[in-house]
């Protein structure tokens, strides 16, 4: 198992290199002057585009350019993001924890709701509960993140003013800027508890309610469907019939024998769902003005801030690889038949 994990972790740089080759390769479609824009920070430089092209060898052949980019990137220089007015890596370090916090919190209701509804539907196949769940999941699945987010914002912020966009209320932002609050993880809810500030914890949580709902709806619909299918499959297995014929109560057969086995694909899917929550994170953060990497990437994309989008894509690739790894490991943990040697 350890060997398997290490082998898979060794794949990480390979994927990162592949993704970066593709993106840096795509940049070759731009003219050297357009590529130079990534290095421009002041108006004076703007008048000296040719000097920049020369300095960074932007008209050199692709391998040279990739080598230049890669040797800088390895040393921690991922370029300068105009969208955030600071180096790309600094922004990622600052903003990534906020996005991870959001995605992790969204994953909880996704898994909980998905398993619960999927179980209810499968145990009452073709009955009212099943039909209702089915319609609900199709509806949920059809609600695009950006539409749902806007609607929630119109109702609960614009209309009722129960929840505000952003990450914290102004009073706490001011307080934090004046010091006295230590940042440990960058995840606001965790940091608030570590600082012993329950009021900030509640405030941070209140700001997360709408984004989490927005993110969770689509993915829970998917998990519900998979859970239902998988449980129906398990219920038709021989060992379930054996358990029933032994005279075990229905509840015990359904929940212990069938559901445990049915959870295997759901667990796998959940870690993959985490990677795909990133899709939603970009949109959700933009709607709720939540300062994670998603909103930064979206702003950067509109401003054609290439180093930022490149950095964001690499982080996404890394998260996808890690989520796949977690899925495989969990797979082996819950299903003793699966061994990686």
């Amino acid at each position, binding site marked *: 198992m350890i060997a398997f994990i290490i082998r898979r972790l060794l794949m990480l740089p390979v*994927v990162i290199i*592949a*993704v970066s080759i593709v*993106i840096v390769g*795509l*940049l070759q*479609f*731009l003219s050297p002057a357009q590529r130079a824009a990534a290095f421009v920070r002041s108006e004076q430089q703007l008048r000296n585009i040719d000097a920049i092209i020369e300095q960074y060898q932007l008209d050199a052949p692709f391998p040279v350019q990739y080598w230049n980019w890669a040797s800088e990137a390895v040393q921690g220089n991922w370029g300068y993001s105009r969208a955030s007015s600071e180096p790309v890596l600094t922004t990622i370090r600052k903003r990534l924890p906020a996005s991870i916090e959001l995605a992790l919190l969204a994953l909880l209701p996704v898994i909980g709701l998905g398993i619960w509804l999927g179980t209810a539907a499968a145990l009452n196949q073709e009955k009212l509960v099943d039909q209702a769940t*089915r*319609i609900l999941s*199709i*509806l949920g*699945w*059809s*609600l*695009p*993140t*950006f*539409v749902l987010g*806007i*609607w929630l*914002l*119109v109702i609960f*912020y*614009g*209309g*009722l*003013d129960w929840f505000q966009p952003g990450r914290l209320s102004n009073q706490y932002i001011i307080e934090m800027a004046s010091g006295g609050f230590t940042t440990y993880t960058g995840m606001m809810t965790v940091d608030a508890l570590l600082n012993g500030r329950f009021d900030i914890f509640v405030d941070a949580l209140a700001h997360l309610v709408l984004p989490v709902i927005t993110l969770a709806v689509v993915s829970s619909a998917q998990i519900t*469907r998979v859970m239902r*299918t998988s449980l*129906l*499959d398990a219920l038709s297995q021989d060992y379930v019939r054996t358990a029933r014929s032994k005279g075990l109560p229905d509840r015990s057969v359904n929940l212990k024998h069938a559901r445990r086995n049915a959870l295997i694909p759901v667990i796998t899917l959940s870690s993959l769902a985490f*990677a*795909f929550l*990133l*899709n939603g994170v*970009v*949109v959700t953060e*933009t*709607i709720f003005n939540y300062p994670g990497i998603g909103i930064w*990437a*979206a702003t*950067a*994309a*509109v401003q*054609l*801030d*290439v180093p930022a*989008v*490149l950095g*964001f*894509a690499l982080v*996404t*690739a890394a998260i*996808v*690889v890690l989520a*796949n790894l977690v899925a495989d490991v969990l797979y082996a943990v819950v299903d003793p038949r699966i061994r990686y040697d």
Partner: protein
Amino acid sequence: MDATNRPEQQPEQQPEETLRDTRAWYQSKLMKRLRRSPLAVLGVVILVAYVLIAIFSPQLTHDRLGRGCMRDLGVTPTTSERLLNPTDPVFWRAIVVPPGSCFRIPRASFSPIPQPPNAEYPLGITGGGYDILYGLIWGARMAFYIGILVTGISLGLGIVVGGLAGYFGGWFDNLLMRFTDTVLAFPNLILAMVFATIFGAGLTNVMVALALVGWPAYARIMRGEILRVREQEFVDGARALGANGLRIFFKHILPNSLAAIIIVASLDIGAVVLTAAALSFLGLGAEVGFADWGQMVNFARQYIKGPPGDPFGYWYVSLWPGLAIVVFVLGWNLLGDAFRDVFDPRA
């Protein structure tokens, strides 16, 4: 390049057969089950409604067309009734090749304050005076343009690449499969965003980006289908009759591999429109004032809070464009769901 043309020629060779089979097709197990499922029927009804709205968008909006659109169509406010007359060439011209200016939403005013629905503007007016109803109707047309064009291009690319991989196998096949693994694992919206950044914002670039993101999935299905069909007995039969490799591939393997991929692709149109709308929403697609649902939802973000004293005052700015997208996607999902049910009753 030969392979690019063949798949499109294929349907032309079969019209007789399909005509003869129409009744049988309608009575087939698949169609029977689809007709029995009320949700599938609902999905079809929704989609047919959208198709009709998209086709007849010039007629539906003939009394509210913008000045540029009327000029390009050669009508005036007093003669715009001509659009309703099927014997008038302008009726067909507006349906088949409407000028690009018709996709600009006409402005009722330049006031930054939205106006609630009234008799003349049943769905209201956004800030900037844009007529919401007009935007939604022409947005439906835009959605089908985007969906069909993007899916068509990625399908074509997927068929060619997947076909080559399935036919030749070996290192090319291996390389392609590793590549598609990577692309498919990557969240598609983010990948399209990366492409759109490099190409620059704009609806055309968004469509190119989506096609580039979409084809690997089809290439994979295509390759799998080719490998499956290749093992079937009629292929052995053809070989035994002495047909050469290319003839077997184009005459027997390819046509029989296309059915699955075309169904999958046509059900994907909804998802493609959704991703395009998301990109437009992020500001990478159409500009303000263009009849595009994603752009309209994006524009609605400026009107979250109503005027003082009336917090829900601007509800119509975000409700209608959002609803147009949700119902559209719902139609595709209902249909897709029913199809999945028929092919795999357990799912």
